[in-house]
């Protein structure tokens, strides 16, 4: 188990390094003086010279990378051109907002979709299976931004049950914060349910064809024990891996939902930074989101043996 964990950890480090190199190269691909770009103001000669000195722009490219990477490791991602604030605290602040939407939505979707997917697989090719799969396919074909707008139109404008757009911080008013989060979370939930249900169904079907399930049935176990004790543990693996990918993808993809519901999250920060050519923020977001993605997948893989101990034994 320890060897498995260490091996997996050792795989994550070169990936992180690759990400850092890629972002460094990407930002340097932009024509012009990197210091002027990071400052956003080429006329400030003194500040420019200071930043050039700090970034070591008169040295070789590998040296520049090392200087850049050491600043990175100290958590120094520079200052935003637009707001003048430090990039890292801004990102962490926005990240805490996005997490409030992404985590509950994915958690709820998993709790609903996995049993439904297993049920569909159990009743394969029955009317109930076909309707569940068709609903799932429909759900995943509806883009989140349209789903969000439809929910907004129905529950916000027509029925007036929920506030239309906006965001309230939990520390200020927990009740209002909760109410404002309902629609964005529901939008994401409906989309992810489709994705997870199809995966849970497919992997359950694969397991149900195996001989040990036939054996479990042959020895007279009730169907509930066959499904939950025997099928679930082996069928949940692929879904568990998918959850890691979904969580990572959503950190960038949540920009869409944050746009529909005007929520100041991490995705919106990145998109606004792209509009404003705020390169320190763009660079910070790219690095931060990619690192979280790698981290989430690392944690997912490390927890995998809980469901399937064979993975660690190999």
């Amino acid at each position: 188990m320890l060897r498995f964990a260490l091996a997996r950890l050792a795989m994550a480090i070169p990936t992180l390094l690759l990400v850092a190199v890629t972002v460094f190269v990407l930002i340097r691909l932009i024509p012009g003086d990197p210091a002027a770009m990071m400052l956003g103001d080429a006329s400030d000669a003194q500040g420019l010279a200071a930043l050039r000195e700090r970034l070591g722009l008169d040295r070789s490219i590998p040296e520049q990378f090392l200087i850049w990477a050491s600043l990175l490791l100290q958590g120094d991602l520079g200052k935003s051109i637009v707001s003048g604030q430090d990039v890292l605290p801004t990102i962490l602040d926005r990240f805490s907002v996005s997490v409030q939407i992404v985590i509950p939505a994915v958690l709820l979707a998993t709790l609903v979709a996995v049993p439904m997917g297993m049920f569909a697989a159990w009743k394969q090719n029955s009317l109930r299976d076909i309707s569940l799969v068709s609903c799932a396919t429909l759900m995943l074909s509806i883009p989140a931004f349209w789903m969000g707008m439809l929910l907004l139109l129905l529950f916000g404008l027509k029925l007036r049950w929920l506030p239309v757009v906006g965001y309230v911080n939990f520390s200020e008013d927990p009740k209002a914060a909760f109410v404002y989060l309902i629609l964005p979370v529901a939008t994401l939930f409906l989309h992810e349910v489709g994705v997870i249900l199809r995966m849970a169904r497919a992997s359950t079907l694969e397991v149900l064809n195996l001989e040990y399930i036939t054996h479990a049935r042959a020895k007279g176990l009730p169907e509930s024990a066959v499904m939950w004790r025997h099928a679930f543990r082996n069928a949940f693996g692929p879904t568990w891996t998918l959850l890691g990918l979904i969580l990572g993808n959503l950190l960038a993809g949540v920009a869409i939902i944050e746009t529909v519901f005007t929520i100041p999250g991490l995705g919106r920060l990145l998109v606004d930074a792209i509009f404003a050519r705020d390169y320190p923020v763009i660079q910070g977001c790219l690095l931060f989101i990619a690192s979280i993605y790698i981290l989430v997948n690392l944690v997912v893989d490390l927890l995998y043996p809980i469901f399937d101990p064979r993975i660690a034994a190999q």
Partner: protein
Amino acid sequence: MRRLPLNLLIGGVLITVLAAMALIGMVWTPYDPLAMNFAATLSPPSASHWLGTDEFGRDQLSRLMTGAGTSVRTSALTVLLAVSAGTLFGVVSGFMRGWPDRIIMTLNDVLLAFPGLLFALGLLAVLGATEGGIILSLGLIYMSSVVRVVRGTVLGLRAREFVEASAVMGNSRLYTMWRHVLPNCIAPLTVLATSICGWAMLAESSLSFLGLGVAPPSPTWGNMLSGSRAFLDQAVWLVIFPGLSISASLLGINLLGDALRDMLDPRMRIRA
């Protein structure tokens, strides 16, 4: 097996409608999609404007038809780029092994290290949000999955007797790759290309919605929906029809993809 014909039927019909809309939109639209008419702003669907007009009095049906063209063009070119470049690298990587394999796979791992759209967003920040930039950045990120699938297939084929026999017969490696390896990659590639087409269409409309796609006034489904947000309570038709177009197209592609997978990849038939 029972679902197969229905998937194919509904998916086929939806895709045909989409293709027809895009093709007709290229040569003819009921109105000029950019022509403003301030006598008929935000008018609901009627006999003269079947799907209503927007805040500038532009005909929504004409704009949807033009937008369909953009959607189909960008997704088709993205698929073309991803599949052709990905197949080339995948075959070279899997068949040659050695250092070409190592270089290609390391670069591919870079692309895979970034979640979904993030790398595309980063590239767009550098390249600028143009149609060419979108196709290039989406093509590049989807290429990574093509490389993986093709390489895997080729690795499996290398050890097969008919590939070895071709080498024994004195055929060049290039000929063997072209004549014996590549044709066997077509089935998995078809399934993957359909998925990529759907991802690209969704990504293009999402980027347009965020304002990072083809710039207004050129209509795309994404930027039409984005523009309709200001009129949510006055003009429901501006929300319904562009969203319906995107969702119906994506549903068509997804159903077609399921049907294709059932037909071409019997091993995966049990997958939904």
